[in-house]
């Protein structure tokens, strides 16, 4: 058996010009980030990711 989750979450905002200049080019700050890896075993209640 399998469970498929599909959900909408913030994807963060683009860094400002200064942040981009300091090395955050293209990376979004904030937003959704995963806390898992493929093949990892998880238990109920553990975090898959954070907003």
């Amino acid at each position, binding site marked *: 058996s*399998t469970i498929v*989750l599909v959900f909408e979450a*913030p994807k963060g*905002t683009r860094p400002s010009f200064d942040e981009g200049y300091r090395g955050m080019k293209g990376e979004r700050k904030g937003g959704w980030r995963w806390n898992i890896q493929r*093949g990892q075993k*998880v238990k109920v209640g*553990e*975090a898959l990711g*954070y907003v």
Partner: protein
Amino acid sequence: LRTALADTKMEWYPIPIAVGIGFLGFLQFYRIQRSQSSQPRLPDEREDRDSGYGSGGEGRPPRRKRTRPSGPWSVQIMSTLPLKALSRLWGRFNEIPLPYYLRPIGFRLYAWVFGVNLSEVGEPDLHAYPNLASFFYRSLKPGCRPLDSNPNAVLSPADGKIIQFGTIEHGEVEQVKGVTYSLDALLGAQRPSHSGASTPLTQPASPALTPQTSRDWTSDDDAEVVRDDEEFAKVNGISYTLPNLFSGPKEEDVHHSAVDQSTPAEASAEAEVRADLALGESNRPWWAPSSYATKTPTALYYCVVYLAPGDYHRFHSPVSWVATSRRHFAGELFSVAPYLQRKLPGLFTLNERVVLLGHWRWGFFSYTPVGATNVGSIRINFDRELRTNSLTTDTEADRAAAEAAARGEPYSGFAEATYEAASKVLGGHALTRGEEMGGFQLG
């Protein structure tokens, strides 16, 4: 061998032309047959042709069309088996009561083979489980699964293994090994219907099964399903309307809601999102990100959790959200083991599944338990009318397909029901973070 090779006299003769032509013809015929068998086909069409009903099945009542999966020989063999009947038989077999004194031995053996942690089992006396089915659907001791302390976390819905996760782009969910399948095929292509009537939240929802037919989401008929500007939910001060949630905001909403009060950086992000919106709006499906009208740009994410046979087979709510409707796809029951997920493209869109659609604080949320051969029964605690892996359901689906055909419409392949609640603001069945939602049962 050396003597035979050295001493045997070989004589060469020209092959007659007719034999050569015949050989090439056979080779071509074999290739055509092979290419046809490797493509998804409709068994009903083949059966109609073989049984003399004609290619269109004239005179026969229309039935559900199920595509035949393509894949290696193992998949082909599996597709010929009556998987749902086998699953039901397996379920009945596991409901046979075990002898009282053999139960602990049998369950300990099962736990040893499949790695069940018996110290977590809710009922420590294994004699209390009359059969394997009840042990399989066991509960856990309170406090065995503490919830993550971060309130912004999305929790694991079940014990299992992460098969795949990522971002959805262009409506395609990437499956293992790069095989993709359409989100429309997984969740259904039609927007959920919504009703203003309400029933108390304390009672389990009693949805009326209303099989509906799929339509193109861009068709004008959508206005009949979704009423304009109907308030859908109010979460964290943000009002969601149905057009906002399922079809995107109106143009004036985009201009008035966010840009006027935002900082330059946020305004640039908004402008970018609005550009994306303008590009994709004409072909954007109903499930696409809907928060364009708010300040926070969003994306669609997905995660696939596989439950192995020894795992705890009840599932929980990953976040606090509102389930507004469910769609029951009465498909097949292939195994969903990682091997088959790699070998069978679109496995999740073939199997029987229950798609729960709703929303949470950031917008769209869907939760889809997918059945398998050994665990074909999906149970939803707040939906007592849901029946999965049953002959009745198959018959109802066949009837719905016949009715759709009589109306001259295609059959969507799912039966939809809406959850109504006392709170019109929420507009569905509210689920709290970590709440038990249901589970998978044997057979």
